[in-house]
């Protein structure tokens, strides 16, 4: 059962081959026996999952099955879940039981989906390796000494290890696509504003976007259909019709114009990764796509721009964690400043502190124009590069990350090298574009993802392009030996 995709599980439930209770129990059993090797879940909600599965089974029996009726899913622990611990990977929110549901959670509930639990992640989604989680690092199911990527590393590892058919993720600078690449699964980061951010704990509000981690593009299409759409509770949510993403999956790619940015194939890219990506592009040429080289001349500005904008927004967003209204509070505060300083000092880990400090500095009096405004201007140049490129091509392709998964502990002493592991994904968030990573091969038995970048709101086309690749290759169907 655990090797089936969501599309196959829906057919199985429809045909009465198994019930949602049986399906849910089988995943809970896998989590309980296998997650000790991975640490991909922070909270497993067994009782709640079985209760939801029972409800799903009765709804199905009554002919009221929603789109994802009875399908088990895991939720990144950044989404607020009513009555259930929502930690965001931080000691600060370890005591936090959310009093309300994120819109994404409400939408999954309404569709009949079942929540297996909350997945591990880098603290407040700040990290590229899942090593900043207060709950300990997640292991990569393909190589237990390697990181799964981050920040949605728990979600990617759990999907790769078949502990859940799919999971949610969030992507501020690559946090869905880079772990999807490292774990050999399909990651989709939609257009900024496509999915509601309400109840999704904010990191950098002008960049954050929720998306999916699945085994196939078809499953991503099923999930996005449920998640997307206008939400008046999120002022940046966009009022635009949600298409049926499954309808166009099989469209032909004959004549598709693919652009390969030369900046994504230069210095810093692992040669073996480059070879995997070049081979993947050849598959598209066989399907009739036309490939041309393009340039995104301001690519080198993406990482520095991001490391002003994201920390600035994070320093502002995380000021709500004050030890007064919710979350961690220090013992015996002497006065109000002592309460704030020690509660925050104890509650946040080193990477979160680094980013709060950088952001506070960049926004402080006298530096705002030199840093924040300068970065916002560079952001427009980066965005303009994509607009220019999309005048001539339909989709941009390249690597999702410069290497396959690195080892746990390999980059922890060097924040900047760690930041560079998001070098190919960050610009997409700055421009608000949709992006995907799909399994395209292996380097030393570790997965490598092909990144697809589309125009704003072109998710249907990206899913079509990803799905067609998955009909002619089987990289996405392979699983890590110990877990299949």
């Amino acid at each position, binding site marked *: 059962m655990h090797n089936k995709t969501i599309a196959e599980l829906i057919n199985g439930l429809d045909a009465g081959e198994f019930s949602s209770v049986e399906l849910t129990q089988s995943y809970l059993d896998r989590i309980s026996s296998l997650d000790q090797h991975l640490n991909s879940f922070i909270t497993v909600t067994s009782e709640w999952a079985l209760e939801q599965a029972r409800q799903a089974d009765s709804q199905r029996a009554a002919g009221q099955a929603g789109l994802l009726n009875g399908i088990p899913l895991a939720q990144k622990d950044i989404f607020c879940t009513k009555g259930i611990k929502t930690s965001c990977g931080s000691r600060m929110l370890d005591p936090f039981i959310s009093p309300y549901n994120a819109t994404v959670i409400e939408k999954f509930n309404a569709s009949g989906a079942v929540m297996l639990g909350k997945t591990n992640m880098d603290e407040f989604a700040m990290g590229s390796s899942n090593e900043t989680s207060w709950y300990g690092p997640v292991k990569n199911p393909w190589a237990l000494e390697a990181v799964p990527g981050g920040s949605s590393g728990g979600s990617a590892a759990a999907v790769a290890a078949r502990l859940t058919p799919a999971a949610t993720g969030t992507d501020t600078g690559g946090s869905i696509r880079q772990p999807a690449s490292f774990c050999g699964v399909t990651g989709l980061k939609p257009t900024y504003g496509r999915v509601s951010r309400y109840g999704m704990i904010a990191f950098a509000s002008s960049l954050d976007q929720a998306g999916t981690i699945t085994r196939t593009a078809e499953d991503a299409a099923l999930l996005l259909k449920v998640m997307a759409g206008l939400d008046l509770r999120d002022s940046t949510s966009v009022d635009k019709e949600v298409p049926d993403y499954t309808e166009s999956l099989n469209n032909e790619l004959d004549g598709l114009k693919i652009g390969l940015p030369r900046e994504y194939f230069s210095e810093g890219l692992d040669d073996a990764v480059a070879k995997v990506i070049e081979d993947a592009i050849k598959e598209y040429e066989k399907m009739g796509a036309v490939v041309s080289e393009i340039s995104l001349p301001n690519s080198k500005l993406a990482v520095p721009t991001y490391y002003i904008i994201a920390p600035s927004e994070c320093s502002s967003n995380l000021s709500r964690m004050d030890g007064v209204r919710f979350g961690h509070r220090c013992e015996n505060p002497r006065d109000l400043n002592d309460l704030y*300083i020690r509660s925050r000092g104890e509650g946040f880990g080193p990477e979160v*502190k680094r980013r709060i400090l950088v952001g506070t500095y960049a926004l402080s009096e006298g530096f705002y124009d030199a840093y924040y405004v*300068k970065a916002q201007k560079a952001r427009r140049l980066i965005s303009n590069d994509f607009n220019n490129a999309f005048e001539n091509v339909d989709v941009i392709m390249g690597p999702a990350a410069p290497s396959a998964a690195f080892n746990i502990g390999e980059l922890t002493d060097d924040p900047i090298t760690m930041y560079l592991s998001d070098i190919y994904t960050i610009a997409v968030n700055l421009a*608000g574009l949709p992006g995907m990573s799909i399994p395209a091969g292996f380097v030393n038995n570790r997965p490598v993802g092909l990144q697809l970048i589309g125009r704003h709101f072109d998710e249907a086309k990206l899913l079509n392009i990803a799905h067609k690749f998955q009909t002619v290759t089987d990289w996405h169907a392979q699983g890590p030996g110990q877990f299949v």
Partner: protein
Amino acid sequence: MSTLDKSDVEKIAFLARLGIDEQDIPEYAANLSNILDMVEQLNSVDTDNVKPMAHPLDGVQRLRPDEVTETNDRENLMAHAPETEAGLFLVPRVVE
């Protein structure tokens, strides 16, 4: 412009009301200086006539009518506060 020393880090940490162990300050100072050095690359491009981009779709703030939409949920929302009394959040004495 971008080498930070111990007193800079202490000042920024206080602005952020963020406790940092004394022994970790040199490492934060070094990390922050390196990050700011990396960011210096932005000065290599001319952005004089570029409009700052605050929102990736250049969206504007959506407004709604000023109507009461949420019910009072004080008890539920305060249930997770570290210390409360009589429907109020407790903090150390502020006014002597």
